[in-house]
């Protein structure tokens, strides 16, 4: 009887140790975070991007005198790489990893009456900065779905105004951002949980700081929508996920 209870006690202790080890496992190996890398390409000929008539504002016209402004619905760079695609881990992140926010402050600049970058990715609750490099007034008017918890706002930024620092409360792919004064100005804020990346002009990307595990990587492009892929990241290793969007 006594030995039996002893054994039971030991078993219980073992179980406790195992649970602790399991739940705290990722923390121990946190130092050995891996990453997800790859390229996003466009298959086919890139659609023609219409030019923008900026004649409403003489400054905008002057700025683009030598480099005509175009819509940025599909931006293809070197070797058919797709720019402005946001990649994030839509499934598989532990609650702890998803709640970690990067310490950087992404910047959304208004330059030459266009948004730089055209698509800005960020984490839920991560602060971002809206700046203006233009000697003409803009108003920044993001239009999220108010039912997600992200509330639309509309603020003026005349020339030389201080940056506006804001953050979004909830995940949302994607929040359109516009300027009412310059109706062609159109960009996106992509708000995700956990690590993310945006493609460079050659379509390459790297999602850093990914704890080992199995994930679904989602690639979002404003015109072509989303694609997903499953990847497994080993500790300290880079997993590869390449995407190809078909030109329409």
């Amino acid at each position, binding site marked *: 009887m006594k030995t039996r209870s002893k054994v039971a006690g030991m078993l219980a202790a073992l179980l406790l140790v195992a649970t602790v080890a399991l739940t705290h496992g990722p923390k121990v190996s946190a130092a050995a975070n891996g990453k997800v890398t790859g390229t996003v390409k466009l298959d086919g000929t890139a659609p023609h991007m219409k030019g923008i008539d900026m004649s409403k504002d003489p400054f905008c016209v002057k700025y683009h005198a030598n480099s005509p402004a175009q819509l940025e619905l599909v931006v293809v760079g070197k070797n058919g790489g797709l720019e402005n695609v946001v990649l994030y881990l839509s499934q598989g992140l532990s609650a702890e990893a998803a709640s970690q926010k990067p310490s950087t402050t992404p910047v959304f600049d208004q330059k030459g009456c266009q948004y730089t970058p055209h698509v800005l990715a960020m984490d839920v609750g991560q602060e971002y900065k809206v700046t203006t490099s233009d000697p003409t007034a803009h108003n920044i008017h993001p239009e999220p779905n108010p039912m997600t918890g992200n509330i639309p*706002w509309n603020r003026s930024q005349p020339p030389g105004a201080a940056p506006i620092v804001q953050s979004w409360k909830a995940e949302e792919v994607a929040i359109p951002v516009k300027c009412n004064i310059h109706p062609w100005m159109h960009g996106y804020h992509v708000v995700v949980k956990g690590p993310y990346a945006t493609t460079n002009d050659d379509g390459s990307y790297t999602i850093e700081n990914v704890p080992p595990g199995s994930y679904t990587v989602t690639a979002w492009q404003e015109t072509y929508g989303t694609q997903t892929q499953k990847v497994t990241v080993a500790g300290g290793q880079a997993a590869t996920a390449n995407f190809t969007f078909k030109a329409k």
Partner: protein
Amino acid sequence: MLGTVAVLLLGITCWAQQTEYSEQQRLNMESHVGNMTGHATIGAPIYKRFCIGCHGVVGDGQGENAMWIDPKPRNFTIAIFRCRSTPTGTLPTDTDLYDTVGRGMLNSNMPHWLPLTNQDRVDLVAYVKHFSPRWLTEKPGTPIVIPPEPPVTADRIKEGRAVFQKMECWKCHGVTGRGNGPSAATLTDDENRPILPFNFHDSQRFKCGETDAAMYKDFMTGLDGSPMPSFADNLKPDEAWELVMYLRTLQPEDTVEKQIAKQIGLKPLEPNGQLPETPATPAPAGNPAGEKSTNSSGTK
């Protein structure tokens, strides 16, 4: 043991799904204006009698009359309101909504509802709030502070014109304030419906109230849901009051500001949005220093 885990999990999922608030939960909504308290359940029959035709059964602004009227009735389900005393991107206070019901939306089909009793209007506010779950999860913003208005002077009116130029109000409202600026024709509201900027020569019936303080509030809070942004980040209180005074010179009604503007021969902005040259310098281009000094009051 597995059973316990299952029960726990079930409990968690049930709790997670509770973000959809029940009708009953939302009907418990109250509103507080002064020492009056409104109740959604009491406001319901009043809404059904007077408001449902435009704002609709579920408060989405799709009532049976909605298709015939423009500007469109407000959609209460997303709780985005033009006339607030709170910063852009926040819920209005109960008093803001109460004032809107009493004032009506000028230049729209929304009349003032003064024939209703004060208590009726407070109850209506509670019922209007019950349409959006945002009122259960968010608090209204902190109302902006409106300092007392300084006395009207010629200098302040001139400064106001400089603010009108610097903040580029004219991009939409036009250099003469007729609502015909370069960006006016392409303006749309949050639901992509065309919308016009205010023409200050038309009337003083501003959407959110006719007083000077109401104008001040419009600059500092913005009219959410419309293209009018908040200037609170870049407009000092004095500048906002000066802008109020300048805009009063454009109004059809006879105002003190208008008389002063006439006396000093105040000119509107140039068609390209620049401040006009001051006529006080009779010498031609040879005296730029003199021009600068007379202009300095306008471009501090």
